[in-house]
């Protein structure tokens, strides 16, 4: 079902709030990753405010959809989306990366049990999502009413394990498995095309027997529509390649791989927050 204009506006405003939280968290933490979290803010907003069947008041609800974050370093966007969705207080976001915090520098399920897994070392999230989806199928056969979403990065496809998981997912025809790949073209050492060319990406996943879609990862209609299409595919796992702009929302950070792994300083954060406030006004005026 297509999103209404009102729904789109609401999601865009949420995403903008989440981006502001990401900047505030990173400034306060003094370390962490900026580009990936900003780039994936729209996808996480769509998931937490429209797609996922979850209950923030009962995070261990057994029938919930599962979100498995494979590239753990973009966790500021996960934490911010969860907090804004009501899983824990927004004020707790300011504990990111600090001693005793539930919000570890890379996600740790022991500290925050409502996470589906701990992650950081790249390339192992899809394997875990495959394992979870396999259990669901073992128990329910083809009567699928919950989904397993694996959020991954393009850079982590350089890890061989990603393809081991891709092979098993294809072999087992896991239609309850939906992977969303953040195709932002950057990694720590530079542009992915220079570090290790990944294209042709669509054909690679198709060759592993996945159903593949490519979308604009900042367009809510496309994000929601692609997930709906993935759910309609009967005998294959789905890969949604979300083309995103790293650092999206703050012009100075956008498309610059130097922002992969560093936080903004005070001045940069103030500039970013001012820009995002303007963006918020723009969203409101565009939808009026």
């Amino acid at each position, binding site marked *: 079902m297509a999103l209404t204009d009102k729904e789109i506006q609401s999601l865009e405003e949420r995403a903008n709030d989440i981006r502001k939280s990401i900047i505030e968290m990173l400034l306060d933490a003094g370390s962490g990753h900026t580009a990936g979290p900003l780039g994936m803010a729209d996808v996480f907003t769509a998931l937490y405010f429209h797609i996922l069947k979850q209950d923030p008041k009962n995070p261990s609800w057994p029938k919930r959809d599962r979100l*498995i974050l494979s590239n753990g370093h973009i966790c500021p966007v996960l934490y911010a989306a969860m907090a804004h969705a009501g899983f824990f207080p927004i004020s707790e976001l300011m504990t990111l990366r600090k001693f005793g915090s539930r919000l570890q520098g890379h996600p*740790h*399920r*022991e500290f925050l049990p409502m996470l*589906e*897994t*701990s*992650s*950081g*070392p790249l*390339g*192992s999230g899809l*394997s*875990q*999502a*495959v*394992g*979870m*989806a*396999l*259990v*669901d199928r*073992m128990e329910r056969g083809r009567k699928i009413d919950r989904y397993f979403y694996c959020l991954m990065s393009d850079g982590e496809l350089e890890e*061989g*394990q990603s393809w*081991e*998981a891709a*092979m*098993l997912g294809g*072999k*087992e025809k896991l239609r309850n498995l939906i992977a969303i790949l953040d195709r932002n073209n950057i990694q720590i050492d530079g542009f992915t095309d220079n570090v290790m060319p990944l294209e042709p990406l669509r054909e690679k996943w198709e060759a592993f027997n996945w159903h593949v879609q490519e979308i604009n990862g900042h367009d809510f209609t496309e994000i929601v529509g692609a997930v709906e299409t993935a759910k309609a595919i009967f005998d294959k796992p789905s890969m949604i390649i979300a083309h995103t702009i790293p650092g999206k929302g703050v012009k100075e950070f956008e498309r610059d791989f130097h922002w992969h792994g560093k936080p903004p300083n005070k001045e940069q954060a103030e500039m970013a927050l001012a820009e995002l406030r303007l963006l918020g006004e723009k969203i409101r005026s565009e939808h009026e």
Partner: protein
Amino acid sequence: MSSLNPKVFDEDVEQIAIRTGFGEGFLLAGKENPNVVGLCADLTDSTKMSLFKELFPERFIEVGVAEQNLASVASGMAAMGKIPFISSYAMFSPGRNWEQIRTTICYNNVNVKIAGSHAGVSVGPDGGTHQALEDIAVTRVLPRMTVISPCDAIEAKKATVAAAKLVGPTYIRLAREKTPVITTEETPFEIGKARIFYQGKKQAEVGIIATGALVHKALLAAKRLEADGISVKVLNLSTIKPLDKETVVSLARETHAIVTVEEHQIAAGMGSAVAECLARNYPIRMAFIGVDDKFGQSGKPEELIDYYGMGTDSIVDVVRKLRQGK
């Protein structure tokens, strides 16, 4: 002692591979609990998971030659309430997939059981690439991991059934070759409990702590030493982690000299675990039998055990020297 196989010292003692005991135990665990599932990386017959697979094909996943995926898929299944057992050769799991075991299993604290077969030089002709001599080291260093190294097929069966009931990451070390049956169905087994398998008539002068199939060599050495008037005790340390500190320290207090015996690198293996315990609780003289900073090679299992100094003659020699130096 009385509950050991009465033929344990006989030439024609029955021989069964430790991995076969795992296969039987895994089948039993599968029958006892429908949540037990199996995953293998293209070595289903070799690791004896085939017994389970035949009876429970719908609870068995073949992941292909992909040990990293093997570990993390199992992590995902455990997060959904299953009790996955994963098997391969120890060299590949927990060898190749160590980081996946660390992060997706131990750090995540999920209930995955890792069965590593073909540990030790007794793998034989396949050569050093396939002879895991580091697996105890890399598993015992991981927080939350339980490490079990059964001495024979019957103990492996019991350990596997017990591991399925234990909540938490567990490594079970298995061997390829047929080795003497030391225990019986009646021999008590408990994870975390070491047991004396040999006690001389006199007060013991040296304590031998052994693990895995080499427990049999330690028993033969003890008998020979006894005949020469040297009384020793042999402790079967089948659980390397958590270490049965009470029993280890008690043996040290009694003998003031400990020899450890394992088919593993001396560095960071079972002997090191014992040394860490005794250094903190009751420092005494120790000697270590194992592979001394070398890789394995092709050969017959027995000749390799002897070449690397882990046979009965070597154990007798080391015990004598340690006793003289006391």
